[in-house]
């Protein structure tokens, strides 16, 4: 691991901690953006340039903006300061579970992973893996996202639109 990795990882961790502990929602989200960009930097230090680019485009460009929308549509989110719920015990339990799951996954991946020496476009390998070995996972993700989208459309429909739809068919 190089110096670059430690700098990027330190920045990423610091911004993650800031995102959790800042009281102002918008400040916290902007710190989360720095965290997303930091993860892209970590991908770069591992010579996975495609993942870094996708991370920037999807997380900083799309997910972050959607989070901002969520905050802005929440009533009084900007003016009222957010305070932690104080559930220390449950927090520790959840954090332990999640981090042990991640550590287990990473250790499993480490035994088989081959890190390229120089940055090479991994797009082809990624595409082959997604349309071959991991096709099932891709399809399941697609179905999940479609279901989520249909749910979002249902939520956003004007009140009464669902009930009146069959009547229009009869007429």
């Amino acid at each position, binding site marked *: 691991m190089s110096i670059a990795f430690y700098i990027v990882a330190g920045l990423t961790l610091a911004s993650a901690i800031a995102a959790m502990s800042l009281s102002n929602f*918008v400040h916290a989200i*902007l710190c989360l*953006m720095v965290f997303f960009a930091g993860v*892209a930097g970590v991908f770069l230090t591992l010579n996975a*340039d*495609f993942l*870094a*680019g*996708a*991370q*920037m*485009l999807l997380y*900083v*460009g*799309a997910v*972050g*903006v*959607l989070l*901002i*929308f969520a905050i*802005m549509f929440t009533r009084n989110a900007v003016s009222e300061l957010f305070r932690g719920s104080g559930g220390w015990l449950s927090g520790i339990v959840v954090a332990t579970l999640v981090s042990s799951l991640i550590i287990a996954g990473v250790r499993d991946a480490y035994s088989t992973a081959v890190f390229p020496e120089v*940055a*090479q*476009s991994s*797009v082809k390998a990624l595409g082959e893996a997604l349309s071959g070995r991991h096709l099932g996972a891709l399809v399941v993700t697609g179905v999940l996202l479609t279901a989520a989208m249909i749910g979002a459309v249902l939520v956003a429909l*004007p009140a009464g639109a669902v009930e009146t739809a069959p009547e229009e068919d009869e007429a």
Partner: protein
Amino acid sequence: MMCTLAATFNPDRVLVGLAEWVTNALSAWPALSSLALILMSTVPLVAIFPGCFAVATWLERKGLGRFQNRIGPNRTGPFGLLQPAADGIKMLLKEDIVPAQADKFFHFWAPILAVVPAFLVLAVIPFGRQMVPAQLDIGVLYFFGVGSMSTLVVFVAGWASRNKYSMLGGMRAIAQVVSYEAALVLAAVPPIMAAGSMNTAHIVESQIVAEWVSGGNILVQNAGSLLGWHVFTPWGFCGFLLFFVASLAELNRSPFDLPEADSELVAGHLTEFSGFKYALFFLAEYVNLFAIAALAATLYLGGWSGPNFFWPAGLAESAPPAALVPGFVWLFAKMFAMLGVMIWIRATFPRLRVDQLMGFAWKFLLPLALANIVSAAFFIRLPWWAAWPISLGLSFGAYAALCVVNRQKGIGPREYRYA
């Protein structure tokens, strides 16, 4: 004698040759040599694009003036050419006002953060043969990834100002950019498929018919450097128009200038910025414009290639032929031509409504971009006699079908739900 002179003289390679000469002269000091190389590929960008910004503001004001039957700026210098300099001095001398309730930190940093991604994306633009500041295998993805930061900056600027108009402008901006970014990225996919690479330099080279350019008479050579452009294929024509329209929205330019709609929102997220902060936002806006125009030229208009006078370069057999007009001249000509069309559009079309804006992105541009990818896939895989009709049918059929589906069913009263 003339022959050898002609063989070694190559205007297309003047800048590359200069860079090679400097690095060779400094080859005894590797650190100094690489530093020189870095400076030679970054300093011209930082120097030239603010200059282009100045010219663009003058062109825009002068052009809009002519469109509106006025003369435009004509007091400073010949034809008002010194107007950008006068504006710059005025901006520098203005008072920097920060609203009392503003978020001081982000209000200060937003203009600076706006300029950073605008210049960063220039790193992957191929300005000529072997003239890419950074050869990245993920060039196009890098462009969009870094470019997506500028959306956030607009929101931060609007939010940090603590002003209703700024906030509304910022929210409008991110809603618009998120919607059009999808169409923009999908419109950039077909040239990547055609080139088999996201490297911008490879995408340009895939649009030059190499065997025509290196041999034959002058007619064949020029045809080889012109007809290979993706815009001359059915999917390329469709894709270029898609990319151009989506980039207009991405740049918040008319007719998609709702975030800065001056008759509704004062100046949107720019309302509370004065003096040089305002100038920095404008600099970022125009550098973004040039960057996205350069990417559009790279993807669809053959980048730095174009009609030219070619002769054998006299180096190795495989070396590309020498050319009279340097590549960057062609690229900048294409960029300014696109700027001209953008000014023309701004002078012609009225601003869209918010519902029209969203409907246009999600119901028209996005499905058309998806259909265009399918059309491009057929075109690339099939022999030309099957590719042309199928691709033409798919691209144009999708366009026609979407036009029918989206036809407006009379104008009824608008329904406001959350207003």
